[in-house]
């Protein structure tokens, strides 16, 4: 039933031309030509997200906070995809945590995921209590994105900046040894 409803919403959205001028630079996404019904979103509040930030197994987790409205995030996203592809076999899991607006899940986020054919795991964080959960992610984070966390069970680093692929790989290698 929920899926049916989602489908219906998708149809509604795809019928309508996007005339909003308020949204940030996501102009390059061609919304209307896409079928996004097979993109499923995992939408969580911070309590739901927290376990992904605190796993205690043998993997290395690369967690990137991003949004389709965030231009520097979009720019670095391919590097995370590349990292996921290159290091999956080495026990590295890339998780892309989207901070998109709920009213744009259908119109922006799903089409984006489809268009860019994102392969990394995607979680969607929908939690307005930002002043509560932002410091839980990192005490030094003031809320600007993109930010990235790389961690394993022994070590954790927080990066308050965008990455090139080489920079990202260099950081990851500190965790691989």
């Amino acid at each position, binding site marked *: 039933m929920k899926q049916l409803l989602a489908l219906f919403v998708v149809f509604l959205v795809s019928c309508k031309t996007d005339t909003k001028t*308020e*949204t*940030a*630079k996501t102009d390059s996404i061609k919304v209307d030509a896409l079928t996004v019904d097979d993109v499923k979103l995992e939408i969580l509040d911070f309590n739901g997200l927290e376990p992904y930030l605190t796993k205690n197994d043998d993997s290395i987790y690369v967690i990137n906070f991003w949004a389709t*409205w*965030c*231009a*520097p995030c979009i720019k670095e996203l391919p590097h995370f995809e590349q990292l996921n592809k290159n290091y999956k076999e080495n026990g590295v899991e890339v998780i892309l945590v989207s*901070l998109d*607006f*709920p009213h744009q899940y259908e119109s922006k986020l799903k089409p984006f995921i489809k268009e860019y054919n994102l392969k990394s795991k995607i979680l969607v964080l929908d939690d*307005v*209590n*930002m*002043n509560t959960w*932002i*410091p839980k992610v990192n005490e030094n*984070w*003031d*809320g*600007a*994105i*993109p930010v990235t966390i790389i961690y394993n069970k022994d070590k954790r680093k927080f990066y308050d900046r965008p990455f090139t692929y080489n920079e990202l790989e260099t950081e990851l290698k500190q965790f691989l040894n």
Partner: protein
Amino acid sequence: MKLIKTMPVLVMVFILSAFTVTIDTFNNGYEVGDIATDFKLKNIDGEMVSLANYKDAKGFIVIFTCNTCPYAVKYEDRIIALNEKYAKKGYPVIAIMPNNPDVQPGDSIEAMKARATVKGFTFPYLMDKGQKIYPQYGATKTPHVYVLEKTNRGNIVKYIGAIDDNYKDASAVNTKYVENAVDALLEGKIVPETKTRAIGCTIKVKKGS
């Protein structure tokens, strides 16, 4: 002899540590209690605006904001409401657009003017030309608010952070951080929450700068 050999090293250490300090100050910007710099920035009407122009103000609600960030857009009506409520009480809103318009053309002075007209901004909307002011404040994103209290020592930072605790829905807000801060200052009380955090859009700078 030994001393002579170690001298250059010592000098290097001094120079390096001096640099570190500079960089730290630059990155961190103001903390609550610091004196905020005044500025002379161009408003969308072409006039230059400084805090010193506001002879009767008791303080300021300085908001780094822009046209293109969806969070900033979400807060436009609430920023207008803040000015409506507090300008007459002595705390006008001063909006500063910190992005480099070469990187973010949607934040050019023309675009700012257009947006201000559409929304009916009742406060100055200033271009941080050359991007010299926002780093001094330590703003990292839009929207990013600094409530300042005017004193004999200068404009003292009393609050840094978000406007309220629900970007999505103004009617579902539980805590109005900025209003609480200004109300406290107007009543001569301690600001209940001096620093809050919220997601926002990174301030856009030219690569390598």
